[in-house]
Each structure stands twice: as C-alpha cells, then as structure tokens.
C-alpha cells in the first residue's frame, strides 16, 4: 500500500482524547447534556476505529476526533426531538467553538474544561466512591468494564453507580463551573482526596491487571499535575503530586516476575523509575516553598525519605518516625497508626511496636483489614511468640485481600511454623 511507513499513535491517545472531548462538549452544551457529550466522543472513537484501519491515520488524529465528535453532536441536536425549540441555540453554541485548532490557547481552554469536569465529579452531593468512578469515566476515558476491573466490582454495579450519578447531575443541575470562592478550598481538598483514592485504587497490588492499574496511577498523577499547573495550584497540590510520583516510581519493582509482592526494603532500586523520582523531588521542593503543611506534605516527606536513601540499609527510620508522629497529630487515623507501628519496630524494636499496636485492637475501621493481624504476626514472630504469631497470620488470611497478598501471608505463616519447629 502507499503509506507503508508504520504509523504510530500516541500512547493512550483514544483514552485521553475521549476524556478531553467529553469535557469540551459538556462545557459547550452544559452538564444537562452530558450524555450527548459522551455519545459524541464514543461515536468519534468508533468511526476512527472503523475507518483508520483502511485509510491509515489522518495527519492530525486529535483534530479528526474532535471534528467528528463535534459534527455528530450538531447533527444529533438538529434531528433529535428532545431539543425542540432549543436546538437552534445549542447548534449556535456548538458552532462558536467549531473544531478547536489545538493551538496553545485552545490547549489552555481544554485544560480548564477538564478541570471544571473534575470539580463537578467531586461535587459533595456525590459519594466518594462515586466521585472516583465518575472521574475515571468522564475525565480519564476508562470504560465501566475497566473501572470494574480496577476496583474488583461487578460491571453492573459500576454502571449503575455512574448512571445514578449522572441522573443526579442532571436532576439537580450540578453546573460545570468552579465553586464559589468560599467553597473552592473545600472542594479542592475533596478533589485532592479523590485523585489520591484513584491513585491508591490503581496502586493496590493485584495479580494479572498490572497494565491497567499503572494506567490508573498515571491518570491520577496527570490530574494532580493538571490541578497543580492551574490557578488553583497550591503547595499541598504539589505535595500530592510529589507523593504520587515517588510512589508510582516504585511500581515496576513492587511485584516480582511471578506477580508476588516485594516489600519496599527488598525492592531492586534499579527498577525504580528515575524520571518519576526526579518529578517527585521537583514537586516536593515546590511544595515546601510556603508555610502550608498538609497531610500530603508529610506523606510526601515520608516517600521522599525512602527514595533518597542510597540503599535500604541507609533508610532514615528515625526521620520517618518523626513524620509519622506529625501525621498522627494531624489525622489521628488508625491506618496511619498501623503504618507508624511498622516504623516504631525499626527504630525502637518489637516490644515497642507491640505496645503501639495495642490501642488498635478492636478498632472498627481496621476490622477485616488484613494488615493489622499481619503486622501483629510479624511483631510476635520477632518476639519469638510463635503460637500467637501463627494465630495472627491465620486471622490475616481470613480477611479480604488480593491473591499476591494472600501468597505473601501464606509465606509468612510457613516461615513462622518453620521457626517454631526449630526453636
């Protein structure tokens, strides 16, 4: 054939442009017409997927997708009875911004569209898990099936959750506009939480789905950078981006070839992503410019301390413990307390760690959380209280956890039982 050079599409072009087209069209048509914006984006992707295999990739694929979605939206508004009376006005609006040229100005305005969409997805009337799913769907360009895979839910559950959210947006007229200045800071905080929930969802270790999971982590990182580079940029946003970049850098080292978990201290540091580490540190430096000290700052400081050690033997555990003490003061979260106990063991030994775990026993928030009994088992084994350690690891295995986590616990259990016999 004529164009024999192998054409290359930018990685994730379809997924990225799907999100941008939805944000752009919804910005023009209003959140009441969110469904049309989504349908138009899907139609553009479908037409591309069905014609490019024969015709090759057009010279400017992004503009092709935008134009196709835009044309679809206009012809749909014209022929659908739903828009009776409003059709002319909507078409006029659509035609004011026909076919973005994708120059720098348009690029900036598209970023604003995306940002408004993220802020709408994080509206306080929506529950946090809904906010995460909706952001992934509308802004991230993930399908409900992919979101279901990421969160280990049924596809129908995710689809219903998203449908309900979209109904609520339509019925309550949740606008695609930035909240007023009094609510803006509060909404920014929930946007940051949702972005980190999205990141953690991708970061949780699961077997088999590594690709899609790191995609979700990188999407969360991209959204964090989007907020950081906007007029809403603040030191705590930079801190969140730093935290995500430093953690995402460890993704390639976190599981071994067989998909088993590798704990931080045993990770091959050569596998860490240098670009993400550098990105993390540059955002970390920016984050400490102001007086603002947020939860994200401290978490980022912990991640930075791990990353700056030349080897696992050189990790500054005492410094990390100080950060955890600060974090405890700020959040009083049982999960933070549990992670702090891990560090207490490094600095002050197993007896002290056991004491730090006592207040967590019976904590409601940690019920069914496998890491509490797993940590108890770890500490008890170090104290050579093998029977109790065995019981703790067995309890951990009764909790909900992923296959790599189960195998990890199983290995711990076997090690304890071997030690018990040799003791």
């Amino acid at each position, binding site marked *: 054939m004529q164009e024999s050079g*192998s054409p290359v599409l930018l990685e994730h072009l379809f997924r990225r442009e799907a999100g941008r087209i939805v944000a752009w069209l919804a910005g023009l048509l209003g959140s009441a017409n969110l469904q049309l914006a989504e349908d138009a984006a899907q139609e553009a992707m*479908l037409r591309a997927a*069905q014609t490019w295999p*024969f015709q090759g990739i057009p010279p400017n694929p992004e503009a092709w997708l935008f134009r196709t979605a835009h044309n679809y939206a206009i012809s749909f508004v014209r022929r659908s009875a739903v828009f009776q009376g409003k059709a002319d006005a909507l078409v006029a609006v659509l035609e004011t911004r026909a076919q973005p040229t994708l120059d720098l100005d348009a690029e900036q305005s598209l970023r604003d569209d995306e940002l408004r969409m993220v802020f709408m997805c994080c509206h306080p009337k929506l529950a946090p898990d809904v906010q995460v799913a909706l952001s992934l769907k509308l802004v991230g360009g993930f399908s409900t099936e992919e979101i279901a895979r990421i969160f280990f839910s049924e596809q129908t559950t995710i689809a219903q959750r998203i449908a309900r959210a979209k109904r609520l947006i339509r019925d309550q007229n949740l606008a695609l506009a930035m909240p007023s200045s009094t609510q803006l800071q509060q909404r920014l905080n929930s946007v940051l939480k949702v972005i980190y929930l999205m990141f953690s969802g991708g970061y949780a270790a699961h077997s088999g789905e590594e690709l899609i999971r790191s995609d979700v982590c990188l999407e969360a990182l991209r959204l964090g950078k989007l907020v950081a580079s906007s007029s809403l940029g603040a030191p705590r946003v930079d801190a969140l981006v730093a935290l995500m970049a430093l953690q995402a850098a460890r993704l390639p080292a976190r599981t071994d070839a067989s998909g088993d978990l590798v704990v931080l201290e045993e990770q091959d540091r050569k596998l860490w992503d240098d670009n993400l580490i550098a990105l993390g540190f540059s955002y970390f430096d920016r984050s400490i410019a102001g007086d603002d000290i947020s939860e994200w700052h401290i978490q980022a400081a912990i991640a930075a301390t791990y990353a700056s050690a030349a080897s696992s033997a050189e990790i500054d555990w005492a410094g990390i413990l100080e950060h955890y003490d600060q974090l405890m003061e700020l959040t009083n979260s049982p999960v933070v307390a549990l992670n702090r106990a891990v560090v207490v063991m490094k600095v002050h030994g197993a007896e002290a760690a056991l004491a730090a775990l006592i207040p967590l026993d019976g904590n409601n928030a940690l019920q069914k959380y496998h890491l509490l009994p797993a940590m108890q088992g770890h500490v008890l084994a170090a104290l050579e209280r093998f029977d109790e350690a065995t019981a703790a690891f067995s309890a951990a295995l009764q909790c909900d956890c992923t296959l790599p986590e189960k195998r990890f616990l199983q290995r711990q259990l076997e090690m304890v039982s071997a030690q018990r016999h040799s003791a």
Partner: protein
Amino acid sequence: MPNYVLLLRNDGEAWKKLSPEEMQQKVEKYLAWRNKPFVVDGAGLVRDTGRVIRAKSDGGVSVTEGPFSESAEVMGGFYTIEAADYDEAVKLSLDIPHIGLGTMEIRQVMVYNT
C-alpha cells in the same frame, strides 16, 4: 499470484463494548497487518446508509437509502491481498483483529488468462 478481496462487515454492538483504549489497540493491530507486504490495497467506506439503485417495473430507476439499520452488520471496508490460494488467503486473514467484531468475506479476484 492471484488477488483476493476481503470484505469486512462491522458488528456495531460488538464495537460499542470496547473501551477507547481497546479500540486504539485494535486500530494499531489492523494497521500493523495492513502494512504487511501481501496487502495490495484497501479502503474504508463511510458509515452511512449509502444508496441502492434498482430497476423499477415501469422501466424507470429507483434510488433508495440502503437497507442498513444500526444493529445490522455494515460493510466497513475492504482489503486486497495477494495469496497463492484460498487456504493461504484465509490463513493471512485470520491475523486481522476483526474476529469477534463482525464478519469477513473472502473472494478471489478474477483475471483472464490470455
């Protein structure tokens, strides 16, 4: 070597189940196949109803929109490939990532032996 025409029909519902990421992966696989040396030609068809032209009983001509509905399989495009025989043409076509997204029809292009 004889030429074969591959007619690809799209199953709209099957395509709609794909996520944007999966669609892109499909496009990349189609294009990788299209760039193989045995592919002579190819073209996509605009996805609309097209026109059907028929003779009318009164001697006139009727022109109607195609009988295609959203759910029916619509012709998406065609490729022309070179292959030794039908067996090879089928074998080469099985690498097109179209399986599950519609049907493929293979026909040998006729030439006169002069």
